[in-house]
């Protein structure tokens, strides 16, 4: 065992004590920091009623939202709150030539309720005009309509009976009322975390693409493979080092992104219901729990990415092919948009791609995975799948390196 850790130490040295690793890691950490702060640098621009362009600092704008959100936090979304919001929105004049958010009435009265407006409109399927005309009777039906909407989806979706039962169970267990919680920090965290995870994936691909193939290009493969532990412990040490580096990188970046977003937008909202982030998420978990589960999913995705990089590195003779394939694997899914009418299983399959696994919507996707009648939510299935896929990759990486022919 000591020998294994000694060999792992050398592998760490090989991976970390390189200019390109240092440059890549520095860049990723720097960009990770910038990707959060970059969102509050600069301005939002809008045209006021007089047609003049007005700029408002993105940071100030976000802080206004934060202040309004915190003022409403802890309030039940009931008829009283909804009607308060409706009253505020009724003061906003609608003008065909100008977007309603540009009016001072919106800024002075309605903006405070913009989150409530968003949630209510999603449930009642309303636009601004519809919202302004919402009656108290309708508002009192908010929770009922919310439940009916979900029941309609459960009844009319083309899903298995097991899944239908699972959805119904989730609905039955869901709270009767929604309590609003400002969760700007978590909203930003799960959005920016996607970018962070993608950057971590890219860094992993760059750092690890040579883990095996550089032995081939440097000519050290002959020495390693002919040594006593060359086809055993050394491979294990390489893969172990690769996984540790990847895990530490993504954990570090996640912690950094979390800390930054919480500092800027506040850490409120962890106890809020996930439903607040999107009315279709069927899971009865809090926003804090969902963020944690998502982080686990992103970590697993990065480890799977590391495993795929390792297996390609063992197969190809130069890091070039590995890095190109990994770049395609990382970037292409971002362009891939399945048509709405595509079968659900195709969406579920699409979410198994590491890039999509790194997204919050991937981990919280409202369709689950059904294995032998067992319904597994994506935030459980994706990490498990990533671990299993990584094991398969590890096997093939070992096999490829063992079978490598010098030449």
């Amino acid at each position, binding site marked *: 065992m000591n020998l294994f850790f000694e060999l792992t130490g050398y592998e760490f040295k090989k991976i970390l004590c390189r200019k390109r690793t240092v440059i890549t890691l520095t*860049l990723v950490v720097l960009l990770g920091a910038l990707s959060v702060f*970059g969102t509050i640098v*600069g301005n939002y621009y809008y045209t006021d009623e007089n047609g003049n362009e007005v700029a408002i600092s993105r940071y100030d704008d976000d802080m206004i939202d934060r202040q309004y959100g915190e003022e409403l936090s802890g309030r039940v979304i009931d008829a009283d709150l909804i009607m308060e919001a409706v009253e505020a929105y009724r003061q906003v004049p609608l003008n065909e030539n100008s977007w309603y958010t540009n009016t001072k009435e919106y800024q002075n009265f309605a903006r405070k309720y913009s989150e409530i407006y968003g949630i209510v409109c999603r449930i009642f399927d309303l636009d601004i005009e519809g919202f302004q005309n919402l009656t108290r009777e309708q508002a009192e039906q908010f929770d009922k309509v919310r439940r009916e909407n979900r029941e309609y989806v459960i009844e009319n979706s083309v899903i298995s009976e097991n899944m239908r039962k699972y959805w119904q169970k989730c609905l039955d267990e869901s709270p009767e009322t929604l309590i609003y919680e400002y969760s700007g920090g978590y909203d930003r965290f799960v*959005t920016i975390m996607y970018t962070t995870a993608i*950057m971590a994936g890219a860094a992993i691909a760059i750092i690890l693409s*040579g883990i095996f193939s550089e032995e081939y290009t440097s000519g050290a493969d002959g020495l390693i493979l002919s040594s006593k532990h060359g086809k055993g412990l050394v491979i294990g040490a390489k893969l172990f080092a690769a996984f540790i580096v990847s895990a530490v990188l993504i954990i570090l970046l996640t912690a950094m992104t979390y800390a930054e977003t919480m500092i800027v937008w506040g850490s409120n909202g962890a106890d809020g219901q996930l439903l607040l982030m999107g009315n279709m998420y069927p899971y009865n978990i809090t926003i804090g729990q969902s963020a944690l589960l998502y982080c686990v999913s992103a970590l697993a995705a990065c480890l799977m990415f590391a495993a795929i990089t390792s297996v390609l590195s063992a197969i190809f003779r130069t*890091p*070039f092919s590995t*890095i190109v394939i990994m770049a395609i694997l990382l970037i292409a899914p971002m362009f891939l948009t399945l048509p709405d009418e595509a079968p659900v299983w195709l969406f579920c399959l699409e979410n198994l791609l590491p890039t999509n696994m790194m997204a919050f919507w991937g981990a919280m996707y409202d369709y689950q995975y059904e294995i032998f009648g067992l319904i597994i939510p994506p935030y459980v299935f994706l990490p498990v799948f990533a671990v299993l896929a990584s094991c398969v990759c590890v096997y093939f990486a070992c096999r490829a390196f063992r079978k490598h022919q010098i030449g």
Partner: protein
Amino acid sequence: MRFNLKKELREAFTPPEPNGRDGFLAAIPYPKLTYREFVLSQICYIRKRIWFVSLLILLAGVGAVYIVPDSSMVLVWIISALIPLLAVLTAAEISRSDIFGMFEIEAVCRFALPQVIGARMIILGICNFAVIAAATAVLGIFSPLGIAKSALYILTPYVSVNGISLAIFGRVNGQDGVYLSVAAAFAVSLAGVILFGKELYDERMTNVLMMAVCVAGTVLMTVQIKKLLVGKDNYYGIKD
């Protein structure tokens, strides 16, 4: 009569072995290739991957226009994600003598290394210019960006990756250089996708930043090209 005499002489005497024929033939001067002919001769040595990626970018542009006509920003993402690949392949092609350790042999030929590199630059420059111009036109027409922004969104990744890659190839020999420059292209490609794919950042600020990167990339690229064409001593990694 005369004909018979020739025939009889041939039959009567054995002709002597040619003396110094090879030397004589070798000494006959022949017209050497002009630089123009040399440049043309180099077209067939440009690797197919360059033509393939150029074609891919054009096809991706045209294909995206037809497949996703209503989501024109997808077109911007796709083209700007592919451009770094063309840039890195171009840089690798220009620096291939260095990457494959051919610089010593090529440097001592009649057309010296800077001339060989110059020939490659002429061919690739024309090819890349055509691709960039076509891609800019496609984006300018079919995306909401307009010609100026399209040119910025295409030129920025191109010049930055090209400049960085040439700088890397100038300093890091062999496959290590390829590794690093592909990594740089990957990073730029990804940065483009992140910047254009999400509306997280101030667009005006992003454009200013891109302009700055474009200018810096152009300067870097120009400096590297100058170094390659001047053929500075020791530049090609020749050391004792």
